[in-house]
């Protein structure tokens, strides 16, 4: 190999498109030539712009004071103001919607992830009768066109006296988050060596003790992703919340937001400001978990 280091290999030369006369240093695997690099950066920058633009756009529109400003975006620059935010924060029920949504999503996240984790663990480690059907039903549950379940769900919630209550909404959200989280966490638990459980048993821990003290702490990336997914699902949900929450003091954000358009005029500027305010907590949470995202998701996805 040492004899070849001073001249570029033919393939490397072909890839770099740099004159072969220049003695190219040997590149490690996964490194590419300057042209290829520029192209890659170009593609990534373009994609990032496309990903960023709609989010930046709504931020920008939310600074325009009039409800038709989104049609003449150029004019917003001259009259940038935070008046929309002031109106939303102080002249509407935003804070109470925010509190409701936060309560519902927070409890859904904690409750949903806990029961999903215990199910995922049971399915990952224990072979019990009904193991296969359970995995299947978790998958099939995700196939439900959930919009269609609203009518029967409504009847059942009203029979249980859970209509127009936080608990009812939390339970309904759990049915949408738990199946996926259970799958995800099952996959993550599968990657944790069984020997750890066995060591726990030898030291006299009960199955629950093993799960709680040994496995859960190791599964933190998976749990973080599951929590993020649950929170986001509950935080931004519209259909259930608008059907099941009847009194205006229990509205969550997604329902409250609609009150801006239900009038004869649509107050797009206020909606934009509200939308931005709504996006803040979930984005913060997102960037807290994002370093776990790749490992947490894939462990769940790579085991089918």
């Amino acid at each position, binding site marked *: 190999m040492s004899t070849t280091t001073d001249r570029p290999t033919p393939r490397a030369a072909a*890839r770099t498109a740099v004159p072969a006369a220049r003695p190219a240093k040997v590149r490690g695997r*996964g490194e590419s030539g300057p042209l290829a*690099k520029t192209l*890659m950066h170009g593609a*990534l*920058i373009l994609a*990032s712009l496309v*990903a*960023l633009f*709609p*989010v930046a*756009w*709504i931020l920008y529109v939310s600074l325009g004071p009039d409800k038709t400003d*989104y049609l003449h*975006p150029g004019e917003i620059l001259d009259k940038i103001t935070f008046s929309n935010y002031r109106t939303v924060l102080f002249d509407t029920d935003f804070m109470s919607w925010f509190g409701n949504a936060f309560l519902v999503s927070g409890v859904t996240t904690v409750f949903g992830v806990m*029961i*999903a984790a*215990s*199910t995922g*663990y*049971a*399915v990952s480690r*224990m072979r*019990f*009768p009904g193991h296969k059907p359970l995995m299947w039903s978790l998958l*099939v549950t*995700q196939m*439900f*066109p959930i*919009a*269609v*379940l609203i*009518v*029967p769900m409504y009847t*059942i919630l009203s029979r249980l006296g859970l209509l127009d209550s936080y608990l009812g909404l939390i339970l309904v959200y*759990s*049915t949408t988050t738990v*199946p996926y989280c*259970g799958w995800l966490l099952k996959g993550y638990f599968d990657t944790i060596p069984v020997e750890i459980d066995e060591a726990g*048993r030898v030291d006299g821990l*009960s*199955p*629950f003790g093993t*799960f709680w003290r040994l496995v859960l702490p190791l599964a933190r990336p998976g749990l973080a992703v599951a929590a993020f997914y649950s929170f*986001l699902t509950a*935080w931004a949900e*519209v259909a259930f919340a608008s*059907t099941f929450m009847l009194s205006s003091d229990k509205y969550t954000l*997604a329902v409250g937001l609609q009150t801006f358009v239900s009038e004869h005029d649509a107050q797009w500027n206020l*909606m934009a400001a509200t*939308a931005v305010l709504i*996006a803040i907590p*979930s984005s913060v949470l997102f960037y807290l978990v*994002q370093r776990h*995202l790749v490992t947490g*998701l*894939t*462990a769940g*996805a790579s085991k*089918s």
Partner: protein
Amino acid sequence: MSVAVQGATGQGSRQRDPRPGLMERLKRSYAKHWYAYAMIAPVVLVLGVLVLYPLAEGLWLTLTDANSLNAARKIGVNEIPASYHFVGLDNYADILWGPGSYDRFWSHFVWTISWTALCVGLHYTIGLGLALLLNQKLRGRAVYRMLLILPWAVPTFVTVFSWRLMLADGGAVNGLLSALHLPEPGWLDDPLAQKAAAVLVNTWVGVPFMMISLLGGLQSIPAELYEAAEMDGATAWQRFRHVTLPGLRTVSSTVVLLGVIWTFNQFAVIFLLFGANGAPDAQLLVTWAYRLGFGQQPRDYAQSAAYGVILLSILIVFTGFYRRWLARNERANG
């Protein structure tokens, strides 16, 4: 271990009285697996009460002529009992080959299938492309990754709302197109443009999940495989074809299945982009079913539920074939 288990049972930390008349075999299985059952009990309970039971009730509804005029309801203090009748499979027959079934069902069916294929195809290819780029040793790839995940980090109804403002007549998208002297379709009014807009927005929303999952898959492929392939003189394309793609197989099969299910049932994008009553042509089966059940007077609960059952059956059949196809591929490729 058995000591610990029995001890715990003795304490009755979970109150689960064995029902009388339980067979001995079941009892033994229960004694052996009770902790597994205890751990899955909450999920089974919640899903059973809030999904399976509604599903059973929904199935029953599809066999009746229930709508909001004859279902049980409350007007003031008066309780009006339900007065709908059993009609057998009439709802299904009406949906599938009744008069006007093409406009009501088959056109939406065709659109839903093409929508799913198109969106999942775009999600997967774009997601894979970006994942491959992010897997390179590039400066600033952490920043790129953060930016590219943004569509996922921000709640859907916020981003879809932003798209709605951008796609409106005179909005940002058409502003850009007119600056480039390109035609400006009425994204939210013209039937064909509506479909294009829906696919565009859904692609934008769905790519990050695919990208991150596939990126994780790429990172789990051992580097030695690439080195070995390079030693054997494989070109970049051959390495992609024979190392990367097979290495991604397990991840891909799962995310594609999830992608198909989620896209097929995609409710939020269509509903939020076109509002409760707009764009009849761009409605997927799921939003159409919702519209039958909630968006019209009288609300047709029975037909809406029948659509739901048809949707569910399509997905279950698809999943069955998909898994069989995967298993066959697995065997064929070793």
